[in-house]
């Protein structure tokens, strides 16, 4: 187990190093100048700015300097916010994205299990058809449509009732999080519903359920102890990647609901060629994703020893 853990962690480190290197090379090969502004600057100012960001050195030297700093946990200073460190940006904005992401994942997982179980129980009956139709909608419609519709619905609801039921946009209290988290988790919830449905159906027709019935166990006990518990396993396994995907992929939802998450910086940095923020956010998100995947693998290995041997 220890050897397996170490091996996986080592692989993860190599992956993160590869992400950092690829991003660095790609970023420096994109045409455009991160120091340019609307107003042209003279040569002396440019030279000084280049010196401040180390752009006056050869790219290979910049690469080694950057990697050295990164190992010490220093991502440098942002180009657009010239007196703000990238570390501060991540520290201040990632918790926002993470909070939203956790809520969205919980929403998706709990909802997915519930709807999935329901559709399986009522297979080929009306509730099944209705829910599966909604599921297909949830998978195929992009999140910004739901975000805009949700927000508009809320505005109309608030003006109809005359009281502010939920805030339309912004961040700060849990009431601000509710709608964005639901919108963010919708796609994953739909996916998990399908997963839960098929796994539940498989369990329901398996031999041990028949045995349990033959033993004379009560239907309640069969459902909770045998069906639900077994059916939920595949759902748990996709949870890890889902957390990473939701936490890092909330850019659109953050934009529509004016949420100060890291996703906004992640996307805007690329548009503004903000080298240090591009590197910082990409490496951070990359490491986060890799870590989540390793975590799931480890839990898997712990549950199922066969995985370790392969």
């Amino acid at each position: 187990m220890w050897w397996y853990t170490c091996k996986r962690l080592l692989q993860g480190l190599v992956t993160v190093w590869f992400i950092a290197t690829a991003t660095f090379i790609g970023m420096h090969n994109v045409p455009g100048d991160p120091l340019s502004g609307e107003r042209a600057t003279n040569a002396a100012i440019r030279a000084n700015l280049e010196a401040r960001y180390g752009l006056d050195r050869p790219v290979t030297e910049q690469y080694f300097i950057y990697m050295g700093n990164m190992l010490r946990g220093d991502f440098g200073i942002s180009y657009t916010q010239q007196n703000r460190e990238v570390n501060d940006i991540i520290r201040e904005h990632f918790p926002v994205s993470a909070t939203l992401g956790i809520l969205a994942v919980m929403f998706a997982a709990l909802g997915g299990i519930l709807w999935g179980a329901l559709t399986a129980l009522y297979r080929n009956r009306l509730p099944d058809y209705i829910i599966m139709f909604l599921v297909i909608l949830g998978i195929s419609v992009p999140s910004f449509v739901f975000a805009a519709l949700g927000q508009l619905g809320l505005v109309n609801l608030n003006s109809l009732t005359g009281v502010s039921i939920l805030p339309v946009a912004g961040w700060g209290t849990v009431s601000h999080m509710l709608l964005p988290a639901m919108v963010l988790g919708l796609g994953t919830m739909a996916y998990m519903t399908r997963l839960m449905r098929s796994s539940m159906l498989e369990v329901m027709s398996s031999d041990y359920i028949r045995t349990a019935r033959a033993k004379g166990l009560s239907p309640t006990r069969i459902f909770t102890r045998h069906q639900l518990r077994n059916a939920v396993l595949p759902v748990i396994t996709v949870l890890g990647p889902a957390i990473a995907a939701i936490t890092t992929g909330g850019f659109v939802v953050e934009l529509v609901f004016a949420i100060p998450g890291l996703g906004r910086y992640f996307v805007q940095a690329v548009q503004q060629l903000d080298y240090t923020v591009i590197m910082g956010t990409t490496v951070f998100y990359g490491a986060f994703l890799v870590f989540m995947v390793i975590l799931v693998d480890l839990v898997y290995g712990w549950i199922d020893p066969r995985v370790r041997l392969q």
Partner: protein
Amino acid sequence: MKQEDPTAYTKAPGDRLTHAAGKQLAIYALAAVALLVAVMFVLNALAGLTSSAAGMSSMAVDVENNTITSYLREEPPQMDSMRASDAVSAIVMYHVMEGLLRFDADGELVGGVAERWEQDGTNVTFWLRDNARWSNGEPVTAHDFEFAWKHLLSPSVGSQYAFILYPILNAEKANNGEVSTDEVGVEAIDDFTLQVTLETPIAYFDQMVGYVTYLPVNEEFYHQTAGRYGADADQMIYNGPFMMTSWVHGASMQLVKNPYYWDADRIKLDGINFAHMTSDSNTLLNLFKDGQIAIADLTAEMLDEAMLRNWSLNQFMEGTVFYTEFNHRPERLTSNYNLRKALSLVHDSSELVNRVIKLPGYLPGESLFPNWIQGVEGPFREEYPVPNSPPDVELAREHLALALEELGLEELPPLVFLSSETPVARIQAEYYQEVFRRDLGIELLIDAQIFRQRLQKMTDGEFDLVGAGWGPDYNDPLTFADLFASWNLNNRGRYSNPALDAQVRIAQTSLDRKERLDAFGEIQRILLEDVVIMPDYERGYVYVTDPQVRGIVRHVFGSETDFTHAWIEPGE
């Protein structure tokens, strides 16, 4: 029992099972909701640690506390006046800081920290009022201005707007590192007298002093922040009508009335809450409808609804002029006059604005000098009118034939139109593509690039035509007029014409208003006659405000949206 068919299994004997399972699921759903609520409470506590939205009302107008809530288009990159170069930072800066001069409700320059000022040739003297205070209680002195101006000119700071101080003696040389900043012509004679020596006598220096870059900085405080000046609310001190009490990056900014401000009686609001930072126009409209922000800009599709709801609409010209610039480098086809003339003859800016862009508040472009510029007495564009030149396809084809002959070409290869990737820029590019193909049979390749890449390609000359724009820095036509001077680094099409350069020199150095405006008129004529650019549109906005808030001012110069003159008039 037929085990092979799970459907039958759940149906026939399983009705009891389904029933029981349904009950279980209901219990499960309740448990799930309870869990979610519990998690939300924990998250609420956590969110309280990462942000502090509490403290100020989130209502658009809070009559009780005399505060209003608004938004910022984006997170201000920084609040360091010496480095700031964007409009959003400027909006906040004009609320929390005050320079020697400020803009009043009509957009006119009046005394700010300076009580009076006087220009005598190259000597400008500012007499400061003795009751102006920083928010730590210390007086605002002439030394604060001297420090800020000299410091930002030092090459090590790398200020992008340092050029706006270049009229000052030795400023450009100091900025280039040729002389020490000690030799820059700014001197605090005593605490309340600031003596400025100019390079040459110019007529518009006071207009430049109104700009953000000329704001004062308290030297002692600046050095205490150790390079983080203007990075957070507690990393700066204020001398303006308001002071910033909180700045949650990317989320909100709160301003309260500054008790140390010398003219505090003038300020009627007790606080401004910039509660949101987003540029999404739908989100902003929804926030406005929900009564959470006091002002919002509208797009075309929102106008009908605004009419229906009987909102009071306002309009203002933001100041920026957009135009299509040609590449005048000799190796480019567009350096040929007849080709440029042919293209300009099928170009119709009123069709572009009224039938293609269709955004409220936009005006068809006719000149590099926008409509709002002032002339000798009346508006500049009335005194120096642009000749009416309607599209003429026949004439355009004649010019095209001439151009082909001069270039020695049978057929014109496709031209490259460099464009930004905003929705407006895209439809504009597609409009030209269609018009040029329809009327002249010229293929236009659209090269849509994000901001910095477009800038790079402009500087490198990798285009034939480029959609460009220019916003004014100070209230004098020169802010536009020197754009195509051969030495101007922003002249990215590399247009070079001694006749135009000569007129720019006159406009820069003359002190006679008539002579200067004649020069601007001549520059306008050259730009149009030589088809240096094709004017596209002037940008404006239509916006709604909360009926309870009065006196919101929006001007080209100073704060784009100015709440310092606003007050609340409680309705119903």
